[in-house]
């Protein structure tokens, strides 16, 4: 089946089997390997991408054909050239990763979380990330990273308005 999916602003037109999962479409058909597949069973959240601007979805639990005509944001689309997105900068500054495997999913889940709630409490961040597993850092620095990013994004929004 022919699909047209806009990933990070670039439209990818591909012919896929309906059973192809979005995660594998992104990795194998679009060559965007930043989206990781961890558990393959919708438990770990490594594969999370953002659909249509503000909805975090597990791309291992969605078919590529469902993304036809939609906008997908992956970790490759977060930075603006050499300038990291405030979330990426937060993870860098706060040491929010060790091996980095879960990081793309954490970033995209947090991205959608901050779209809906620009000023979340620590508890809200922890709750919002509870579908994403990290086996290295113990979450403390991930939460700090999201807090830093939330602050920076609020400052930027205040300047813009």
């Amino acid at each position, binding site marked *: 089946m022919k699909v047209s999916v806009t990933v990070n602003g670039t439209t990818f037109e591909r012919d896929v089997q*309906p059973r192809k999962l979005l995660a594998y479409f992104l990795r194998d058909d679009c060559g965007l390997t930043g989206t990781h597949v961890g558990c393959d069973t919708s438990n770990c959240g490594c594969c999370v991408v953002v659909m249509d601007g503000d*909805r*975090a979805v*597990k791309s291992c*639990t969605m078919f590529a054909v469902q993304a*036809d005509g939609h906008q997908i944001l992956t970790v490759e689309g977060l930075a603006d050239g050499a300038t990291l997105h405030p979330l990426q900068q937060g993870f860098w500054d706060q040491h929010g990763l060790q091996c980095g495997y879960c990081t793309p999913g954490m970033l995209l889940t947090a991205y959608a*979380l901050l779209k809906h709630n620009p000023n979340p409490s620590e508890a809200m961040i922890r709750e919002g990330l*509870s*579908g994403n597993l990290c086996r290295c850092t113990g979450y403390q620095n991930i939460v700090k990273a999201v807090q830093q990013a939330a602050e920076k994004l609020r400052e930027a929004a205040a300047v813009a308005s």
Partner: protein
Amino acid sequence: MIPAAFDYVRSHSADEAFAELQKYGADARVLAGGQSLIPAMRFRLARPSVLVDINNLRDLSAVRVNDGTLHVGAITRDSDIERASWINERRWTLIHDVSCVVADPVVRQMGTLVGSLCHNDPAGDWPAAALAARAEVVVRGTSGTRKVPIDAFLVDSFSTAVAEGEMALEARFPVPDERTAGSYRKIERKVGDFATAGAAVQISLNADGTIRTAGIALTAAGPCAVRVDEAERALVGQKPGADLIRAAADAASKKSAPQADLRGSIPYKKSLAGVLVARGLRQAFERLGVNV
């Protein structure tokens, strides 16, 4: 972990989706949120040969209150309910509680209430809530559209009143009156795991403080969600109190018929059912401003 091959049909209207389902019968499944169906297909526990995608049917994405009824469409996401403007009203506390604990926050951005009812997993959260809140499901069949009360809708594990070739269009919840509160309590080993046990409670009070209506149902306590009718009957007409809570909890433990698994033994889960009903009732009474 790749699903078996299937044909994919994207529908653009409920009529079109229904026609496709009629055409393919038992071979077809509706694809709404897909958060239970797709994992089942990946494990090859489900092998539909046709998926009818209803995600484009905007008419079915509403979550709105009108004419004394809360309408939840077939593709309304759990996160849409969690974020609804009116969800913080006390009368919706049961629904709100559930919308915050189904699976995990990312799964809730795709997963749907109606899909959960149609999947009818014994450990699903929405079936028990729908029982306690006395919901009904609107089903489109060959002889038109019919409303099925939730007790008749939930037939058995992974089985509902939706027959081959039919589709569920929406779930309806009667708007509870002002003096209503509920609670959903669940024990899970970790976020996103199947419930070890869960209890849904919804209580409406009369002006004199006695209980007008009571809805009590259990998750993971039988082949599908279980209404604890004995506890409901014991509560109605009474003033909230500790003895009453104890009686309801005992009835829940007795009614619970769980399966032993890695999450716990049968006696443990039966005990949990009682504990969670007691906690749920206490919280509902607290939310109503009643000290017990």
